[in-house]
């Protein structure tokens, strides 16, 4: 299996080797190898159902791979080890927010779960960075899809993760909202943050990703420019 590697000499942030995952008798990932450098953004593309979400969930430590290993900053990411998830942020299909809490309260909750000092300030700063401070006191129920995605992004970046995983972030967004999201992703780049965007809409990711990987038949196939 060709190992896709970064072209420059940045230190390696994420290294996944031989990832396999089956559901019952259905094999989804047959052996994925992946290397992500610090500060790099890559896109993973592929048709529906090929296993992109599964791959992301394994990288995030939510799913246990049947075989293989994920190393983040040299330390293994394991579902059984909660601390190994501390440096990972995930933006998934669903926003992971509570309708009964305001945006501010939602983010404070996440901040507390990560043990961050001064959760209130961290939440406010995070909302400010995604330009949602004006809606801090509103419930997610009142937000449009585009705004919810921004709130979800704030949630994913709140604890200053080292690795950001995005699962089809542009789905359901109109051109303007997608543009805003892209701008936010391009602008907010803390040093060393590695990003993996899973998308089947390549044109959306092209200007932010430096490499594009294709997931085919359960493993990384060709490397597109």
């Amino acid at each position, binding site marked *: 299996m060709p190992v896709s590697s970064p072209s420059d000499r940045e230190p390696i942030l994420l290294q996944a080797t031989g990832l396999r995952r089956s559901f019952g008798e259905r094999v989804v990932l047959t052996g994925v190898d992946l290397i992500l450098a610090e500060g790099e953004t890559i896109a993973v593309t592929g048709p529906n159902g090929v296993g992109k979400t599964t791959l992301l969930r394994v990288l995030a430590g939510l799913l246990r791979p049947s075989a293989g290993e994920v190393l983040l900053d040299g330390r293994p990411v394991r579902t059984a080890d*909660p601390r190994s998830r501390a440096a990972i942020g995930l933006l998934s299909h669903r926003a992971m927010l509570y309708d*009964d809490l305001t945006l501010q309260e939602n983010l404070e909750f*996440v901040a507390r779960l990560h043990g961050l000092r001064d959760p209130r300030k961290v939440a406010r700063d995070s909302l400010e960075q995604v330009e949602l401070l004006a809606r801090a006191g509103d419930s997610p129920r009142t937000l449009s899809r585009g705004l919810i995605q921004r709130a979800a992004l704030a949630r994913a970046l709140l604890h200053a993760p080292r690795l950001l995983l995005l699962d089809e972030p542009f789905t359901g967004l109109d051109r303007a909202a997608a543009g805003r999201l892209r701008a936010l992703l391009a602008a907010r780049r803390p040093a060393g943050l590695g990003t993996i965007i899973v998308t089947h809409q390549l044109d959306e990711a092209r200007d932010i990703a430096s490499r594009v990987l294709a997931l085919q038949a359960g493993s990384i196939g060709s490397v597109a420019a």
Partner: protein
Amino acid sequence: MSSPPPGALTAAFIIAGKDLRSELRRRTALVSAVVFAALILVIFNFARDPTSLRAEQLAPSAFWITCAFAAVMALSRAFAVELEHGALDGLLLAPVPREALFLGKFLGNLVFVLVVEGITLPLFVLFFNVSLRGALPGIMLVAVLATVGFVAVGTVFSALTARVRFNELMLPVLLLPFMLPPLAGAAQVTAALLNGRPILESAGWLRLLLVYDITFVTLSLLIFPALFDE
């Protein structure tokens, strides 16, 4: 990373706090549970032959059956809130142990059910014209002992059935057998206390409830992570 993630107990309090704050804001679940309990008590009164059974004989059973149904109702919504917007994933992503998720939900559910029982008790005293006669501390003790036991198992089953079909039916079907020991004990002890018997006479039941609690809280805590071990 500057600060370490919280330990299991702290995380549990954070989660329980989030649940209780949500609940206080909307109060729909609490109000529904209390109204439900009140309705059952009222129906109990009308579903009996007024000449044959004195209210006092029916009272302890009526109270505890009411609490059981209200508790099952409460538990079925415990994980439902996590399914909207996929918030459960958010909890699973947090750098806290799965046990913290159990403890947090367990504490939140326990407080909720105890509050419902606390509101139902005066209603029960009112409707069934029961004189508590100094039995209150004993009843509160047995209420806590009984509730801890079935809320622990109920929390596990609530998480389990949240993602299963027909979950409104599955939860009672799975949970009700587990309510036999706590309910039997609670009803027997309540009846004895209301009849003026000293609490020491019910020591056997109280011991059973305590052992039940220790067994099932521990077992539930240990087994809960298996539900999410994907």
